[in-house]
């Protein structure tokens, strides 16, 4: 069996088996999803040596040639994203074992979650833009439903906005694909880039297509003019879902597709890169300042996601190899610590019953593990030296100075300080101070919720080790795939 197709077959099969038998057989969903999550992560790790030595792995559906059939391709960039997605999903599935107990139809959640993973893996693997669109829609639709899973009024409202804006984004992307097809008569990405490169006069069509794709993927990635849906959707969803949405979904559907389409298919121009820099800076600043004002923990984290995705887009817009390395490294780190923080928020909400900063206080002595892992996550995201987030931000800032944008580098450093401010507000509000009597007899979350948090906290420190020469090839091959 070809391993690449398994990335889609395993989650799909799990999803449909759970939908079929989940109501009848108790615990089937728990067993199957955790097996699938662990299996997918092992599978993702097992392709790393192959990609680093051979550069590109291909899988052809039904033995059609790559140009005619819909084939799957893994290069360095896809490998990085596959590892991140399957790591986060594996841990989130362990976490939801006990977190999702409060919902009566847990198997529906598990089936939808597996569908979303299938969509995400498909987006990463697909080699032609229409297959990418189909999987993107699969992941988005599963996401819309998962946001509304609790069927509370706020969740429904957030999910409706997410649905409308998400489908508007998809329409923009589809229109771009249609125009690109009319221009090149093919849907295969490598083929399109060859044909575009061989046409001497390109006219205005490609600019229009670029604008459509930028708007579509920008809405999916919640860049600043299109960010309105993200705080609502990510704060109303159940915590494991928010962890996945913030940790991997906006990066896969937004940032990865943006990189793939612009850097590998259409090709970049200086105008486009400037656009990305401006969008990135705007998201960075607006997200950080909006986050300070929030009193809802999850809402604060959601605005912080906008700000951090701004860093990634800013780094990509600078476009030098070092900046792209920093951007991709920050993408990986952000997936780790933002999932960690959302899982912490879920644990706090579960034991204390609220996520309002004004009501929470002094939980550190009652929740030692949650508070220490949250400290790791907060310090890592705000760029305090030994943690992984520091290294990626440092690389981005150095790259910006090297590329001749010292003012932008200064802004990035200042936004990092603002980030530290609101994460200190979070730490001070939730964990420090005297414990109110209302929280006198709360207990730490169960083991299955602690374990993923500890793993992610360790990774948020150990992530910096990826820059060591022996592990660097993992990131370097992704950078090469972006810039080739």
């Amino acid at each position, binding site marked *: *069996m*070809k391993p690449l*197709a398994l990335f889609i*077959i395993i989650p*799909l*099969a799990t999803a*449909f*088996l759970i*939908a*079929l038998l989940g*109501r009848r057989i108790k615990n089937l969903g728990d067993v199957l999803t955790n097996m699938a999550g662990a299996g997918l992560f092992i599978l993702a790790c097992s392709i790393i040596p192959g990609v680093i030595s051979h550069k590109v792995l291909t899988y052809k*559906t*039904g033995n059609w040639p790559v140009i005619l059939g819909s084939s799957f391709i893994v290069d360095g960039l896809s490998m990085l994203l596959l590892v991140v997605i399957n790591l986060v999903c594996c841990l989130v599935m362990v976490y939801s074992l006990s977190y999702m107990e409060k919902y009566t139809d847990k198997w529906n959640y598990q089936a939808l979650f597996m569908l979303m993973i299938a969509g995400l893996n498909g987006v990463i693997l697909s080699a032609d833009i229409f297959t990418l669109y189909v999987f993107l829609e699969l992941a988005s639709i599963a996401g819309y439903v998962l946001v509304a899973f609790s069927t509370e009024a706020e969740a429904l409202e957030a999910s409706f906005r997410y649905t409308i804006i998400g489908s508007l984004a998809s329409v923009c992307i589809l229109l771009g694909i249609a125009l690109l097809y009319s221009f090149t008569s093919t849907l295969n990405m490598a083929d399109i880039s060859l044909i575009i490169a061989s046409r001497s006069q390109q006219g205005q069509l490609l600019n229009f297509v670029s604008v459509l794709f930028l708007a579509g993927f920008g809405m999916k990635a919640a860049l600043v003019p299109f960010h309105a849906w993200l705080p609502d959707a990510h704060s109303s969803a159940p915590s494991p879902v928010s962890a996945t949405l913030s940790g991997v979904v906006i990066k896969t559907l937004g940032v990865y597709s943006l990189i793939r389409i612009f850097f590998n298919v259409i090709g970049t121009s200086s105008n486009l890169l400037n656009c990305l820099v401006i969008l990135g800076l705007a998201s960075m600043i607006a997200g950080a300042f909006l986050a300070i004002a929030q009193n809802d923990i999850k809402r604060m984290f959601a605005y912080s996601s906008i700000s951090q995705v701004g860093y990634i887009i800013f780094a990509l817009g600078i476009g030098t190899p070092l900046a792209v390395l920093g951007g991709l490294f920050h993408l990986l780190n952000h997936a780790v610590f933002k999932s960690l923080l959302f899982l912490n928020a879920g644990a706090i909400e579960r034991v204390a019953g609220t996520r309002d900063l004004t009501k929470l206080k002094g939980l550190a002595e009652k929740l030692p593990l949650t508070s220490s892992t949250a400290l790791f996550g907060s310090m890592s995201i705000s760029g305090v030296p030994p943690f992984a987030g520091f290294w990626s931000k440092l690389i981005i800032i150095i790259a910006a100075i090297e590329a001749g944008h010292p003012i932008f580098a200064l802004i990035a450093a200042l936004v990092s300080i603002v980030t530290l401010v609101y994460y200190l507000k979070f730490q001070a509000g939730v964990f420090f101070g005297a414990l109110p009597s209302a929280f006198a007899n709360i207990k730490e979350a169960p083991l299955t919720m602690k374990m993923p948090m500890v793993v992610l906290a360790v990774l948020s420190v150990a992530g910096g080790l990826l820059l060591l020469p022996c592990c660097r090839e993992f990131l370097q091959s992704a950078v090469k795939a972006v810039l080739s």
Partner: protein
Amino acid sequence: MKNNAPGMTLIVKVITRLTVGLILLYGFYIVLHGHIGPGGGFAGGVIMALSLIHLMLAYGKEAVTKKIGRRRGIMLSSIGAVLFLALFVSSSVGFIKFPVVPGGQHIILGAGVIPFYDIAISIMVGAGLYTVFLALVILITERDEQ
């Protein structure tokens, strides 16, 4: 005329009784001939689901939900999906092989695995669409009762 009976008037009921079987049959035809003419699993599945919805509109929802409830609909839809995946996996590994007869016009079993894919898709789509309709109807009536 009995106005308190569920469903629509006698005219609609009689016409429905006469046509609904034909619509279902047409759905089967579209599914089985999907690989040699226009149509296929999705279109056929939609037509089959529409025949059930037609019946539901004319006779009231209990007439159909007694036979196929929401749970059974979800189950059927999942069975279709699992069948599709099983076909994909087993045929791409080479575990099962179906004959391919090029150029045959009226040979249903001559296009390799495609007709079987069509059947799996039609089960999935038909049951899925019907379940969606049922879920929306039940949601609305639940709300009215509250």
